[in-house]
């Protein structure tokens, strides 16, 4: 059962990154694609009805990780104490800037919150990439079962590494580019006029960078944690995920003229990449850089079987409901965003 929950947690986190990823990307491009107040309201109207629901995926995946793998949650969250506090403040700044920006008709007020949205969204994208980098690289777990990492040490990805080293920074920047590119396609789909034109322009510049950056990230990961690719090669059931990533990337270039297929391709690219990574990492939840025997694994950190089975029952009951709510909200998206809606 613990293996199944590993897959479900990975799937929920992937959905989170695909969904909140496009509004992080949209936020990061906000100042570029939308120049005047009317355009900015259009951008906000396009993420307005969904960003809060997207963020619920973070809460829900966090909750599921907590209940299925309590010790992974405890060790991971306490070990990244300061970085997670930064995440909380960034999310607060983002939520606040979207909510309050249009309440006051004053250019300075609006300029301030627009900049806050852009900065916090871009940083959140970097944080997501760096977080993945930390999990892949591993953390200094010792016999106590816990660890604490400093912000940075010597920027080598080996030994006593900090939260930031060359590898995690690289993945952070890659995530920023990839999510910005993802957000650009979302904005192009949801908007018209100048916002759409600029979003398409951004996507045309960003996607080749994503392709090149992806190759660099693959090579870098091979240097830091080569086991992933060996495990992936030995697990044929995970190959469709890698194929999905490749097809998604190809689709982005193929569907240049069609907004929704392009956006769906970009979602498939992100989902396939993360899914294949998780499949290669399994059964590790948090590798130890001190000694592999201290690594936190799915079976080692899992809650008792009875609880996991009960969880499966309500999870299977809950997810169709979530799909229903999301279909209701997303249906409102099939008309283009208008400034009057924000």
């Amino acid at each position, binding site marked *: 059962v613990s293996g199944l929950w590993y897959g479900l947690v990975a799937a929920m986190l992937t959905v989170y990154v695909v969904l909140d990823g496009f509004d992080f990307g949209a936020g990061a491009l906000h100042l570029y694609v939308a120049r005047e107040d009317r355009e900015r309201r259009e951008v906000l109207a396009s993420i307005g009805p969904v960003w809060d629901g997207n963020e*619920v995926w973070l809460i*829900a995946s*966090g*909750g599921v990780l907590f*209940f299925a793998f309590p010790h992974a949650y405890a060790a991971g969250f306490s070990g990244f104490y300061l970085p997670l506090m930064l995440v*909380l403040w960034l999310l607060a700044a983002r939520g606040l800037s979207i*909510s309050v920006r249009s309440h*006051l008709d004053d250019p300075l007020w609006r300029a301030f919150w627009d900049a806050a949205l852009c900065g916090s969204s871009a940083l959140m994208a970097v944080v997501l990439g760096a977080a993945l980098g930390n999990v892949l690289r591993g953390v200094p777990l010792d016999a106590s079962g816990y660890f604490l990492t400093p912000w940075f040490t010597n920027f080598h990805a080996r030994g006593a590494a900090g939260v930031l080293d060359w590898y995690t920074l690289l993945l952070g920047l890659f995530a920023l580019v990839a999510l910005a590119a993802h957000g650009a396609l979302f904005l192009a789909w949801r908007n018209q006029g100048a916002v759409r034109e600029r979003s398409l322009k951004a996507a045309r510049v960003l996607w080749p960078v994503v392709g090149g950056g992806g190759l660099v990230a693959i090579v870098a990961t091979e240097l830091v944690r080569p086991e992933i690719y060996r495990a992936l090669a030995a697990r044929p059931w995970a190959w469709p995920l890698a194929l999905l990533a490749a097809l998604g990337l190809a689709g982005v270039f193929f569907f240049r003229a069609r907004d929704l297929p392009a956006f769906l391709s970009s979602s498939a690219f992100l989902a396939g990449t993360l899914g294949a990574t998780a499949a290669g990492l399994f059964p590790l939840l948090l590798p130890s850089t001190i000694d592999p025997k201290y690594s936190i694994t799915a079976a080692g950190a899992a809650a008792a079987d*009875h609880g996991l089975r009960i*969880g499966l029952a309500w999870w299977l009951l809950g997810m169709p409901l979530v799909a229903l709510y999301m279909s209701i909200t997303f249906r409102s998206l099939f008309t283009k965003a208008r400034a009057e809606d924000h």
Partner: protein
Amino acid sequence: MSDPLFWHRVQFGFTITFHYLFPQLTMGLALLILIFKLRGHEEAARFWLRVLGINFAVGVVTGIPMEFQFGTNWARFSTFAGGIIGQTLAMEGTFAFFLESSFLALALFGEKKLGPRKHLAAVAALFAGSWISGYFIIVTNAFMQHPRGHALVNGRLELVDFTAFLFNSWAIWEYLHNMSASVITAAFVVAGIGAFWTLQGRVRDGAASLRVGIIAGLIACALQLFPTGDRQGKLLAEHQPVALAAMEGVFRAEKYADLAIIGQPDVDKQRLENPIYVPGMLSFLAYGSFGTTVRGLSDFPRDQWPDNIELLYYAYHVMVGLGTLFIALMLLAAWQLRRGVFSRPVLWMLMLAIPFPYIANTAGWMVAELGRQPWLVYGLMRTSEGSSLHVPAGDVAFTTLGFAGLYALLSIVFLFLTGREIARGPEPVP
């Protein structure tokens, strides 16, 4: 000050106290907005939805840190109890937050697109989401107060009986007590703002809010005392007698125990200074008969005493005292509502009463959480055993200051934006 445990407690206590100022209004207000809509007060419903929107955003932003802090600040507790309390936290996300967040946007912005019936359904879904969320959180807390459905295996808690855990009797009464308290906050806010408009001479703006606020407030105030408060007290007497003794300031066991209305506990001398008593009342309230012995703090080993008896005692008396005053004020207001004419002093009192349900709610939660001490999970894990070991005190002190600054900013923005909405008031139906 160099003790990490102290800072973990300060950080969690501060952030949860601030956070809960918002959901208590959201949950109660969601119900009142549904009532406004069902009674055809569309203008009032629309106005309070706008306030709910701002309030909800602050609730979300301050709520995410709460889930994170289980892992960041209370890692050993999370490893120990995560298999159980993680269930309800994950279920809250799955069953409540998705519902709330999906329908909030539709309720706020979708009235024109949806039409009246679907909009009513969106408001009802929003209400259901917020109240379901409350239940899962209360079940989590009730497990920490009165663990049910678990087994201790290899030093960790395992879930063995899901129904016993989910329908813990403690959870059911705590939930009802908490939700009626949440309705009290919303009712006082709604009635208080209605009174404010009426005092300003905007009688038409204030009428619906006054009416619904006062009726809901009177009902909720009565439910708060009986049966919900009464049953909570009896559960406490049965399962946490040492907490009850500290709340009531009972140091030595007494038959026909007196109820202290007021007085100052002196923990060193183990007595209550300058008390005013109602004879025999405590035995009756706790056990239903005057002759039952109420155990005092001295009947329990000192290492089981709550670690801040003074604060617990005062928080409890503040809660009960305010609850009593609320009933009196709402009775007076309901009488004037029935008569059809409000006097200015009563309107002033309603308006100035707005902060007090927040204080009573906060005091009530302080009673629950301080009364649970020194336990984190009652009888199973002490608070001192649950914090994260590797996180230094300085980090937590530093980020606590960060939260204080951020939350000060949030408060200013919140008051500014709701203040503008209130000044503008409800707009006539087009």
